[in-house]
């Protein structure tokens, strides 16, 4: 089936540093999402992105977070600066139409020390 690739699978950084999480979505998909999951618990919506713009964002999407998809390549989540509470697994997802079947990557485990 369609694949969403996330790079890297694990990232360890010091608090206060910047981190960029990369996602290669399904090629013909138009909607892109980031979710946050802590300790295998609930999938928490962060943000969705369409036509080069953020459509919706949750309270978890702090001012330190930003997303972009330059030149239709990777869909990225940048956190600058990072905080301890940002430690989690971040999942990227894409879909062809809004809130229809989401295809998820395998996640990037972010550890902030």
């Amino acid at each position: 089936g369609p694949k969403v690739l996330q790079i890297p699978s694990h990232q360890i950084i010091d608090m206060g540093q910047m981190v960029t999480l990369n996602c290669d979505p399904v090629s013909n998909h138009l909607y892109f999402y980031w979710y946050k999951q802590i300790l295998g618990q609930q999938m928490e919506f962060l943000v969705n992105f369409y036509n080069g713009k953020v459509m919706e964002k949750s309270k978890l999407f702090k001012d330190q977070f930003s997303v972009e998809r330059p030149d239709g390549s990777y869909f990225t989540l940048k956190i600058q600066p990072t905080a301890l509470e940002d430690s989690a697994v971040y999942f990227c997802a894409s879909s062809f139409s809004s809130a229809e079947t989401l295809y998820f990557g395998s996640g990037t485990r972010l550890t902030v020390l």
Partner: protein
Amino acid sequence: SQWGEENLQALSIQEGEDVTMNCSYKTYTTVVHWYRQDSGRGPALIILIRSNEREKRSGRLRATLDTSSQSSSLSITAAQCEDTAVYFCATASMSNYNVLYFGSGTKLTVEP
């Protein structure tokens, strides 16, 4: 919150048994997604049920949707060890259909 149940639930059953997982939601929706998440992986859609279907089957899976009680269920018949996973229901509300919100999930363990 979109959801009535907030805590991850855990179920443990023996291989060959049937199991039903439930979720209830607070805001009106016309479609419920059920996703399965294996350890170390992202969620994957296993069944999607719309309000005009009430029941939908896919292999050993059966989903129901009751919009009047705002609840959905997922049943697995004759569970197998490979059914061990976390199962989430997810909906997009009518007021914010661009976003899929996930419930807290059920961690299902099927023992041999």
